[in-house]
């Protein structure tokens, strides 16, 4: 017996995920423009892997395959994996990473909606721990031509010192380790006006997409605002204390994955906190930990680890920030 309500809003998971994919396109466009079209190859590889992995696992479990692929969530995961990775990472790293994200992180917990960890971020963390050298080779500022990128992706010679470089964040920490001052480092080639050279544009693309998501009410303001504000505030505090040792907040906002994370990663509904206050705590925690890892930790980019660390806290955050229920006084259980 089907029960009420008998009418439903025309909304679907597919639509939500499609919107997210759509919102990623400005960022990807900027990426292609600034860094090269190699990323598109990676996106294709990752998408195919995601669909295959999803289908395979569902098949193994004897569950219908079509709805799971139709919901497009695997593609979101796959795209985000690629966008976090260096664009010239060999194809098999992408394949391993996406398979890990989909088969292990998502489906071992029962599939869509049930994973306590952000699949894309687990994939990133696992890969940077497993293959630190491959994962820290980025195309140099100014980009590489498509042929070279393709060659690298398909497994071409990797030990070409000349063609790879460091990201802005990596260069910054390398420079700081060499006891140079921030100002001197920021005049080096990988840096542009705000963040890494060219990366400002990509960040702007993500920002545009993020605003679209906000406008379409796919995400709420809590997480992006809390994340960016905390990141900026922490960076600002250290910067004010010692501008020679710490980069400015604007640099931190514009470099690495900050913008992508603010609107597309921190906001993952499945593995994130859900209550309004919880969302703020969750995202602020990511901002803080990400900065600490960037500035003091062993990894140049700390957002992925910060996301996982806050994923760990989600059940407790949600539990402790349950909003007041209609008619009840705050914090009082029945």
């Amino acid at each position, binding site marked *: 017996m089907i029960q009420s309500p008998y009418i439903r809003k025309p909304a679907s998971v597919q639509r939500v995920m499609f919107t997210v994919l759509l919102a990623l396109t400005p960022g990807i466009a900027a990426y292609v423009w600034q860094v090269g079209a190699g990323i598109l190859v990676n996106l294709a590889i990752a998408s195919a892997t995601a669909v295959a992995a999803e289908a395979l696992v569902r098949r193994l479990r004897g569950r219908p395959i079509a709805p799971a692929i139709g919901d497009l969530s695997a593609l979101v995961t796959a795209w985000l994996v690629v966008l976090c990775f260096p664009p010239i990472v060999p194809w098999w790293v992408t394949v391993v990473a996406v398979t890990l994200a989909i088969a292990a992180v998502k489906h071992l917990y029962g599939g869509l909606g049930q994973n306590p960890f952000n699949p894309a971020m687990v994939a990133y963390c696992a890969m940077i721990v*497993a*293959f*630190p*050298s491959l994962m*820290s*080779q980025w195309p140099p500022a100014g980009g590489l031509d498509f042929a070279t990128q393709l060659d690298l992706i398909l497994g071409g010679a990797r*030990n070409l*010192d000349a063609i*790879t470089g460091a990201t802005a964040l990596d260069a910054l920490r*390398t420079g700081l*380790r*060499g006891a140079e001052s921030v100002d001197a480092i920021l005049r080096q080639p990988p840096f542009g006006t705000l963040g890494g050279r060219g990366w400002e544009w990509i960040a702007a693309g993500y920002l545009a997409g993020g605003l679209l998501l906000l406008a379409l009410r796919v995400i709420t303001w809590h997480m992006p605002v809390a994340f960016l504000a905390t990141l900026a505030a922490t960076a600002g505090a250290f910067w004010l204390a010692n501008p020679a040792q710490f980069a400015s907040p604007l640099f931190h906002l514009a470099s690495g994955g900050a913008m992508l994370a603010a609107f597309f990663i921190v906001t993952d509904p499945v593995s994130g906190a859900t209550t309004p206050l919880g969302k703020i705590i969750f995202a602020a925690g990511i901002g803080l930990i990400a900065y600490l890892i960037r500035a003091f930790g*062993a990894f140049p980019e700390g957002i992925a680890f910060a996301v996982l660390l806050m994923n760990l806290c989600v059940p407790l955050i949600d539990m402790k920030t349950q909003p007041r229920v209609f008619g009840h006084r705050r914090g009082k259980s029945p």
Partner: protein
Amino acid sequence: MKDRYTATRTSLRTAGIMLLFTLVFTALMAGTYRITAPAIEASELAERMRLINDVLPPENYDNVLLEDFVEVGPVAELGLDQGGRIYRARRNGEPAALILEAVAPDGYAGRIRLAVGVDTGGRLTGIRVTAHRETPGLGDYIDPKKDRERAKPWIGQFANISFAEVAPERWAVRRDGGAFAYRIGATISARAVTDAAGRALAWANERRDALFAAETGSRI
């Protein structure tokens, strides 16, 4: 049940039994210790000697190295902020080489501890990493045990190098315009070790005579 177990009585009884067991098993342990002690001492010695042999081939000296040392206080050049021990190798009573402890403070994931051998000719006899926390698979090639190039480990390039072969201004990794090889993607580790080795060598060259002259076990 003849008599009630009072608390004191039980305590005494259990304590007694406990005591018995303790004595028996402690005796067993102590016995084992007696038996194994010489072997343990030998193994520990062998372990230390293995490291020293890596840094300074044994044919270079004939004294009892481990008994010929000086203590140094904190030395900035060696990165030692707690002080350390310097062994002195002699051949036929003549100074032959020094074995220093050094610390590279600027490794990728923290300090890298080194053992550095310097002979009287101002030549490095060898370097070994004794403790580090560099990223496995990336920066850990500085430890020859982890180096994929087993036949020709990276750290081997420092053997028999002096400032005559590599001038102090070129004492750096190639990426920094120097003479020493490094591995792509993990320059920092290489740079840290190279720099520390250079500093240690310079320091040893400067203090050699004072170091050899000092009384064994004395503090400089």
